[in-house]
């Protein structure tokens, strides 16, 4: 199986007034095509920086980022992004917000096809009937759903999400997790999900990568293959609990609050 995302020995530092701030150090991540990869780690360790590297928004000081067998040196239209802040454009309707990427990415779709595509996606996330509303008329969870639609409307190979559900209440968040599974069943994409919520990572991802504290490097890779996973109940099985336990421990190690124990 080929890897869709290959991050090889990436090192990156920000230039600040007090000299360089090393953020990532010799980071290696591979995500096979179609997989969903969650990245967790202590706050401020460099997760958002990682998303910007994959998207080609910044270049690594050392190492390489590969997408689909091509080296990333600049942004590319085969990537979709979603953030904690839904960043919808207030002056556009929900439908026009979702259509935004199609105005930029070269494509051969007719106006009609674009609209149909956007409407289908909105229906898929439960926003049918809200196409002509303004973002300010929607709840936080609904805005994040619209934002998700926008991030995949141009059929990207890679969906990068930086704590997309971080600002939502627990119930809305669980709703959106299930929406995510529904989207994955319909749309083929490879995902990178940055999150602070271990249960979220276990429920959604095929593998969970734990980053060490800053400068971040890959500390631990956990394969999550829970059976029958679209049911939320799966989080409460023994299997899931064991995984959560291991991840919890790894986070504590990353924060410098626990020693590594041999497994």
């Amino acid at each position, binding site marked *: 199986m080929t890897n869709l995302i290959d991050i090889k020995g990436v090192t990156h530092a920000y230039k600040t007034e007090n000299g360089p701030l090393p953020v990532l150090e010799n980071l290696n991540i591979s995500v096979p095509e179609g997989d969903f990869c969650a990245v967790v780690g202590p706050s401020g360790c460099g997760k958002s920086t990682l998303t910007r590297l994959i998207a080609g*928004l910044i270049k690594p000081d050392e190492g390489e980022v590969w997408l689909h067998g091509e080296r990333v040196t*600049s942004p590319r239209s085969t990537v979709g*992004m979603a953030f904690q802040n839904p960043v919808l454009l207030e002056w556009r309707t929900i439908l026009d917000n979702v259509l935004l*990427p199609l105005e*930029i990415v070269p494509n051969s779709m007719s106006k009609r096809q674009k609209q149909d595509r956007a409407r289908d996606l909105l229906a898929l996330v439960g926003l049918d009937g809200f196409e002509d509303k303004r973002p300010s008329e929607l709840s936080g969870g609904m805005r994040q759903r619209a934002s998700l639609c926008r991030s995949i409307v141009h059929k990207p190979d890679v969906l990068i999400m930086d704590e997309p559900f971080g600002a939502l209440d627990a119930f809305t968040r669980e709703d959106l997790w299930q929406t995510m599974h529904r989207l994955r069943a319909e749309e083929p994409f490879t995902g990178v999900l940055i999150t602070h919520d271990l249960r979220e990572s276990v429920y959604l991802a095929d593998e969970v990568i734990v980053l060490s504290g800053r400068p971040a490097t890959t500390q631990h890779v956990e394969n999550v293959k829970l059976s029958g996973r679209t049911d939320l109940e799966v989080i409460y099985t023994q299997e899931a609990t064991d995984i959560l336990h291991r991840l919890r421990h790894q986070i504590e190690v990353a924060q410098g609050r626990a020693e590594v124990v041999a497994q």
Partner: protein
Amino acid sequence: MKHWKKVATPTFAIIAFLAFWEFIVWFNHWPNYKMASPSDLIPAYAKYWNLFLIYGWQTLWRTVVGLIVAVIFGTLIGMVMGFSRTMRDALYPLLVGFNAIPKATVVPVIALIFIGQHDFNTILIAFMISFFPISVAVSIGLSTLEPEYRDILRSLGASKWTIFWKIALPKTLPEFFGALKVSVTLAFIGTNLMEIVEPHGRGLGHLFDSGKINADYPLMFAVLIALAFLGIVLYYIVVALEKIFAGWAERPQG
């Protein structure tokens, strides 16, 4: 019902204001040279109505042209300062200093430099006095654009121009119109300053000046009211434009 109220409320306020004015003048037995009353103005308008039309138009178009130049120049300066930190640091003190100079002192200087070029003079002052709020608003609007907004488009390979056109510009419009409302009034002041100061000038300012020279006090007050009227018209044109282009920024009031 709602529309009816929207027009009726300000109309009532204006009538109440005029009545109050008439009453004060009558109550204090003020002579014309101290304060003319609204009823004195009607003969002034009747006598000079053609001058009011000609001069009013002159004042109006020169203010509007000055304002348009201010919008173009102010937006460009604002864009330069909004996109580049260095330019912001370099230009800000210059702009603030320039803005701090009382324009009443600049008017005679300009009038002398470009003597006789009435239209140019007036437009120049109207522009100089009114571009500052616009450039500040645009630069602040652009420099406070959250990075995520930019990243959303940049990650798709959008050009800088596309990002400006699709996101930065519309997002700045509410601030821009806020500033434009201030600038309209300022440009108006600029036009009139020049019209009053310049010898053999034009526009309502000149009419005011000739009222002064001829001790025609009702005429002077009539000019002031005409100016107020033009100011209101311009202001509401800006409000209408704001509704069209930045109406989305208005939150429904509950």
